[in-house]
């Protein structure tokens, strides 16, 4: 049912070598899209492309660093050269200081790490969005899907900078929805919570549904928002969080 909701759409998914980004790339391809799988981990991106192609889908790997506007510009140009258009951008690349092994309370967080986290999450989203906008405005079509986080809604101890950057992405989403609605471009945010990419964590204590979510469950929402079914949805932040924001478990 509905297997081809994204037939022939061209989608760029950043940070798509693993986790939620990989799940989105696989889901989009399964729904008929041509997927530009972007990640600084080029081997990982290539492996995702391999999975998609083995399943009969269409995809190509790119290795643009989302914090580098020249690399992103070149990646977008290459996608346009290969596939002729960009219908969908998923700004998924991101992560906290944990990626550097430097998770810490804010008072102990160094300025270089703070700048790195803002750069990756917030500037990365802005750089990729900026790079596709002229094209989308010209075609008066586009679906931009940003990945927020419940950290950006509720905050998260030891993840202050990440929370701030994700909160900024939610505000960016709303502002871009205001600016771009008249051009037929939908801009939305998905805020996952407690997605079980870390199997060692006991997620049953984190969500009202007593489990961690699967990356595929976030990907399903991304596929919905990218489809024609969601044409009236713009400027929203949709939670996929197992009820995490309902407050402390009782």
């Amino acid at each position, binding site marked *: *049912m509905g297997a081809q909701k994204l037939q022939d759409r061209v989608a760029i998914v950043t940070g798509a070598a693993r986790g939620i980004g990989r799940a989105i790339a696989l889901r989009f391809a399964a729904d008929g899209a041509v997927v530009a799988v972007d990640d600084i981990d080029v081997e990982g991106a290539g492996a995702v492309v391999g999975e998609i192609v083995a399943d009969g889908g269409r995809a190509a790997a790119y290795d643009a660093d989302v914090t580098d506007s020249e690399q992103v510009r070149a990646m977008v140009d290459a996608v346009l050269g290969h596939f002729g258009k960009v219908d969908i951008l998923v700004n998924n690349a991101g992560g906290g200081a944990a990626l550097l092994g430097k998770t810490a309370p804010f008072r102990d967080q160094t300025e270089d790490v703070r700048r790195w986290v803002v750069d990756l999450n917030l500037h990365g989203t802005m750089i990729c969005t900026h790079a596709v906008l002229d094209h989308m405005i010209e075609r008066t079509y586009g679906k931009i899907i940003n990945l927020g986080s419940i950290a950006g809604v509720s905050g998260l101890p030891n993840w202050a900078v990440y929370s701030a950057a994700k909160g900024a992405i939610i505000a960016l989403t*709303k*502002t871009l*929805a*205001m600016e771009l*609605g*008249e051009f*037929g471009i*939908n801009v939305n945010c998905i805020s996952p919570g407690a997605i079980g990419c870390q199997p060692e964590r006991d997620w049953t204590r984190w969500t*009202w*549904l*007593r*489990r961690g*979510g*699967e990356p595929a*469950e976030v990907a*399903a*929402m991304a596929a*919905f928002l990218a489809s024609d*079914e*969601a*044409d*009236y*949805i*713009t*400027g*929203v932040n*949709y*939670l*996929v*969080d*197992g*009820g995490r*924001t*309902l407050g402390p478990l*009782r």
Partner: protein
Amino acid sequence: MRFADRVAILSGAASGIGLETARRLAAEGARVVLTDVDGDAADAAARQLCAEGAEAIGAQVDVRRYDQVQAAVALAIDRYARVDILLNCAGGNSARVFGRSVPFHELEVEVIDWGLDVNLKGAVYFCHAVLGQMIRQESGVVINMGSVDGVTGCASPDYSAAKSGMIGLTKSIAIIGAPHGVRACCVSPGPVLTRPAMAKMKTRLGRAAEPEEIANLILYLCSDEAAFITGANYLIDGGRSIGGPY
């Protein structure tokens, strides 16, 4: 067929978003119980769905009457032995329904009561009447229809307060239901072309929605793909709630 053999009960199902959602759920395999304060219209809608090959029954329910709510839920359980989906869709702007264009402070208390009762109390009644069955069967989804007005406010305080109340109701049903596999979501639409006047309301996309666009979101949230989603409010408003200068 995302909803094969699921059983859905809907309020306000004889017209608009409720009817559209019933039709779509039925088209994807659900057995549907259409309730409406206009019992004849509910019956006619159910007959129409049956003629299209669906399994549907109609029932007269004024959501302000707990005995009628309870009877409809009992009918669903009696007929189909379970309830998988509850859509609380009955509602309306009281001042408009009663043709009262006076300022709120001059509005009759009876009109305010109608607004609060139909838009909020009826949904609380339906949740109360259905939850025991969903808990027993260890599964179920409750969709409460909010409104962009419940997020932004509007010139009809009883309506906006009731619709904000739907968000709180949703969170609490999510908390109560989670240990039993029962989810709850609120869907808050912006202007929808259930009436032509809606086309004049401002949105960032410069248009109002077709009812089927709201049904798209309701069906997604009811489906197994949304199994990790509970307790939140899902705006679908063409960007109306973000406001800003036009």
